């Protein structure tokens, strides 16, 4: 099939599914629901894994999922199905309305009452038509090429493999308040995982690039070199004594920390009192150098979308502004519970971040490192150990030990322990290296002190 034909077929399918969603909304109302909201996701996935220059596996698929919720007398029921046959869907709708009558009434439930100005999906540049034109051979070659370059470095002893994956999807939403719209998104991911060193002292890391547009993806050379560099720098680690020192977070680690912050500012955590930031709106919770935004409207970025899962348009929401907690991120339900407004972060019955990031500063990572007399550059954490109720953090960690402003040696078998509230109040420097590799992201930062446990 030509690219034009595939494009046409995809549009026809979207129109058909949008009609199906609208019909189901009407059907639900006809058989007794006060409010109905129907979402349909449809798309295609491709993924190839290469290991030691051979294809290990290749997956291609079409997927479809329909989900809906109904509200009757302020009582809610929801359902979803990957079987989209009219009979199954109608039966699920009937059963859901029946189930709603068993739940308790909840005055905060229901769809968003008024819909705000529409964001034009095209203005967000989330869909790359190029996706239909790349043939499987080129996709396989990208992964082969990335691993090949990485393996050509003699310090690399084994490979976890390289992966190239693409997806194209359409998100269709219709509800009983007259909303009916859709948007299309594409994504491209290329990455490689590596090992260096001999069996009993091997280290591992990797790198990746993730973009909405094919042409914006980092080329194999850049990804492979960065993966090699990140892996070999961990070779021959030393143990360190338990101590409290300044810690530099590289961008992926800042992103990890911000992911935890998102959980703590999510309106759903706040009304459940499951966050240390409950009742802190308007208070200073971080240094004046800290500004964190949630922005769904940055063209081409992974966390952008024209509207959230309830049809509320996304926006740019200051979360922390110069250290002051400005907003919790809410869906309609959490917003009503907290007497606030939705921020366009709804995701099913919960919330999810749009582009949630720490605003970058002026310094390069090299400048931040050179300012560190003695301390740790945190490169990776593993395990669990995040407690939103207290803000406590405790994780296994890997890093590079810094002495006199220079990297001295890698360290392993350490753990870091601290508290998110204390970390936010003690960010001494903020880097200029914000990369948007993930929806939640941030530049390098230096934190005044954390407990690093070793021997």
């Amino acid at each position, binding site marked *: 099939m030509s690219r034009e034909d595939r494009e046409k077929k995809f549009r026809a399918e979207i129109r058909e599914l949008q009609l199906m969603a609208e019909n189901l909304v009407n059907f639900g109302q006809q058989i007794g629901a006060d409010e109905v909201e129907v979402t349909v996701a449809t798309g295609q996935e491709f993924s190839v894994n290469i290991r030691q220059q*051979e294809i290990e596996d290749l997956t291609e698929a079409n997927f479809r999922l329909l989900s809906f919720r109904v509200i009757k007398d302020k009582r809610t029921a929801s*359902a979803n199905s990957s079987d989209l046959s009219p009979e199954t869907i109608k039966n699920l709708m009937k059963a859901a309305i029946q*189930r709603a009558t068993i739940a308790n009434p909840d005055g905060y439930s229901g769809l968003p009452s008024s819909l705000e100005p529409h964001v034009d999906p095209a203005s967000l540049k989330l869909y790359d038509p190029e996706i239909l034109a790349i043939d499987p051979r080129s996709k396989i070659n990208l992964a082969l090429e990335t691993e090949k370059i990485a393996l050509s470095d003699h310090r690399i002893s084994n490979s*976890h493999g390289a992966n190239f994956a693409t997806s194209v999807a359409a998100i269709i939403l219709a509800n009983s308040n007259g909303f009916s719209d859709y948007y299309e998104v594409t994504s491209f991911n290329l990455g490689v995982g590596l090992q260096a060193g001999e*069996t009993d002292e091997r280290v591992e890391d990797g790198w990746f690039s993730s973009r909405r547009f094919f042409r914006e993806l980092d080329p194999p050379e850049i990804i492979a070199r960065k993966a090699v560099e990140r892996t070999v720098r961990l070779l021959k680690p030393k143990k360190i004594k338990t101590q409290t020192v300044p810690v530099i977070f590289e961008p992926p680690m800042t992103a990890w920390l911000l992911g935890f912050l998102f959980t703590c500012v999510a309106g759903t955590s706040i009304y459940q009192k499951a966050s240390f930031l409950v009742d802190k709106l308007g208070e200073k919770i971080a240094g004046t150098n800290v500004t964190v935004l949630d922005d769904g409207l940055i063209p081409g970025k992974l966390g952008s979308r024209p509207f959230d899962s309830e049809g509320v348009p996304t926006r740019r929401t200051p979360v922390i502004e110069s250290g002051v907690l400005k907003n919790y991120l809410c869906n309609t339900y959490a917003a009503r519970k907290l007497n606030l407004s939705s921020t366009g972060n709804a995701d099913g019955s919960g919330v999810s971040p749009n582009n949630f990031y720490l605003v970058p500063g002026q310094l390069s990572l090299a400048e931040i490192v050179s300012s560190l007399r003695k301390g740790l550059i945190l490169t990776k954490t593993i*395990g669990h150990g995040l407690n939103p109720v207290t803000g406590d953090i*405790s994780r296994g960690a890997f890093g590079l030990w810094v002495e006199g402003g220079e990297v001295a040696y890698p360290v392993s078998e*350490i753990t870091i322990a601290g508290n998110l509230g204390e970390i936010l109040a003690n960010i001494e420097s903020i880097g200029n290296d914000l990369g948007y590799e993930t929806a939640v992201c941030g530049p390098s930062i230096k934190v005044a002190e954390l407990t690093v446990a*070793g021997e």
Partner: protein
Amino acid sequence: MISYSNPFPLSLSDLEKIIEVALSQGGDFADVFQEYRRYQAVVMEDDIIKETSESIVQGLGIRVINGEKTGYAYTNEISLDKVKQAALTAAAIAALPSPVTVKPLVAQKVTTDFYPLKVSPDSVPLDQKINLVREAYLACQGFDSKIIRVKAALGDVMQWVAIANSEGLYIAEARPMIRLSCVAIATTAGRREVGFAGAGGRVGYDYFTEVKTPKSVGQEAAEEALTLLEAVDAPAGEMPVVLAAGHSGVLVHEAVGHLLEADFIRKKTSVFWDKLGQKVGSSQVRIIDDPTLPSMRGSYNFDDEGTGPKPTLLIDQGVVKGWLQDRLSAKLMGLPLTGHGRRQDFTSFPLPRMANTYVDRGEYSPEEIIRSVKKGIYAERFEGGQVEDSGKFTFTISTGRLIEDGRLTAPIKQATLIGMNIEILHNITMVGSDLSFSPQIGTCSKEGQEVPVGDGCPTLKIAKMTVGGQL
């Protein structure tokens, strides 16, 4: 044994045609995994039954193996035409036609029953499920006035699977699963802590009257939150660690189990790849993975490739004895199948995975073990852990106590343990006689695929381990 009408629309002769298409471009082996799953859930929060939900998952995955290569395609649309198209997509992995004969399918009977339940999840009306959630919620809320918020949730699943392959196998079964969980938030003088408890497994609703009541789940969550209100910072640095029986099975799962999965061995990425027959730990250590333990989350009558599972000895007297195998790895390594080829759902192809992993019982009493420690920590419950192929692993204690002069004293706050697996295995100096299994709520993640697992262990003493607490 649960008997159900077959929810799958494709006939055996349809499946044979599909497998023929899948192997039409060559390849050594093909299989079709059909899945139909119904899920129901109830959530209680803010003193009300907030929402009920239901989901239906239907789909089919086709795999073609050609040497070391796997081609995979899946679809939710189960018509013969759509599925044949998916079979052709998967077939593209094999470039050269080779004469593989597709054997006619013979339906096999499932002869074991590892889910001996009385009341199947889909036979219970929703209002009875709601009552169970309410019971857990109220028991938690009423436990102490310091409990300020509760959330209780119940989810049950019936998963029907049917597997057909090019060697003529056809086998199908229905797998039940129930999970009840409760979260409690307790507060006192500006301090707030969260407690969690859960229960369930491959059980029926008779479980809640005969094995564990919802009330006890609610109370356990409340107790954990209240204990944490009194908790002191864990010490930081190297010290002896005693692992409580049951919950601590997660350590075995993370530190050892993953790296004995045959794909990591075959690819030589695991620290154990060249250590079969070698001593990697203390002589007291014996580790087994057993998918045939009745009612446990990790159990099944056949794995997701249709293989009957076997209890698999992994480590005996500290010596590596075997690996967990799926078809692909077993074939490439020339070793027998163990029945550990598992997948999250029809969208994923099988990988070698753990089922129910445990450390076998030893000879020490738990009291003896605690008494032997002058200063250290006692780890009771865990949030989970993670391992690297290099053997470095970590896991997080959610509740535990200090051990001072051979006695359990103050509760400690969340802390993380980290170590190298082989070092830890050597440092296991005492193994208790009190084997038990952790609550049946565990899920294991590997390469993005989540599967239910069980794990267990007796009380264990690790002579020294790095604890990440506060200075």
